[in-house]
């Protein structure tokens, strides 16, 4: 979801006007554009995909009801996602699932690259690569392959849910760090740790695929 080059505030005002006028195409576009993010965010709070889909649906019903009252203090997207998080938290609490971001432990200290890849403390060049990572710029065809995208998707699906949400919002959907922090109520530093771990793990999966 790359940001358009037009003034985002003006585009947002125009969209809001269309929605309030009952423009179905505008509404359907919004529903489609936010679906992946909404589902991912909901899934961090509720137990399964079916419930997450219900949360998304309830959120849209809430958005439709609240559209005339929306005052534009936050962006439309942020407002919709805040309704979603509230709905998801309510459902999550009812299902007695812990709220993941509130209980997020500070960075676990596991290294993001296997320590075996680096020279040990008693070797020359401690902490240096034993063997350099490959030059993927020379493997362009493989990198561009559709299978490589599928490998990335599977790697994301295997991540802890909090990491999945952050990498999806940042790198799939193109949200800013600020938007992710506001939506998930997570500190900027924690957001960055989650993004770092997620990207590192996806890179490892791609490395196994690309370098074979």
């Amino acid at each position, binding site marked *: 979801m790359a940001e358009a080059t037009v003034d985002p505030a003006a585009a947002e005002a125009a969209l809001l006007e269309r929605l309030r006028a*009952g423009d179905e195409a505008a509404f359907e576009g919004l529903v489609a554009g936010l*679906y992946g993010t909404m589902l991912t965010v909901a899934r961090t709070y509720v137990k399964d995909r079916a419930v997450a*889909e219900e949360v998304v649906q309830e959120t849209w019903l809430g958005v439709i009801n609240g559209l005339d009252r929306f005052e534009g203090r936050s962006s439309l997207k942020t407002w919709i996602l805040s309704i979603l998080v509230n709905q998801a938290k309510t459902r999550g609490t009812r299902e007695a699932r812990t709220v993941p971001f509130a209980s997020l432990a500070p960075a676990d200290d596991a290294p993001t*690259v296997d320590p075996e890849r680096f020279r040990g403390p008693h070797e020359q060049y401690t902490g240096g*690569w034993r063997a350099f990572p490959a030059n993927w710029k020379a493997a362009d065809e493989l990198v561009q392959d559709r299978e490589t995208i599928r490998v990335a998707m599977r790697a994301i699906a295997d991540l802890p849910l909090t990491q999945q949400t952050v990498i999806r919002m940042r790198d799939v959907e193109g949200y800013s760090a600020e938007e992710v922090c506001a939506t998930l109520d997570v500190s900027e530093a924690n957001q960055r740790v989650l993004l770092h771990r997620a990207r590192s793990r996806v890179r490892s999966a791609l490395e196994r695929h690309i370098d074979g």
Partner: protein
Amino acid sequence: MADGTAISCQEVVEVVTDYLEGKLSPEEVAIFEAHLAICDGCQHYLDQIRITIATVGRIEDEEVPAELRDTVLAAFRHRRM
């Protein structure tokens, strides 16, 4: 960053996101980039992370299930009345 003057490859991989997010101080950026200038391994690693981000960015949006779309569209239409 270890002793404030140089970092190891093992440290580079742990601050790569801070670097890309613009969260390193100017001094740290200088140390990071000085390392990259002389280390093909870490330059490749940084390239790999950038390629990873680009690849993840090519994942397509999930399709809205038809039933969900129809339900919320009906509610939207009803609102207009």
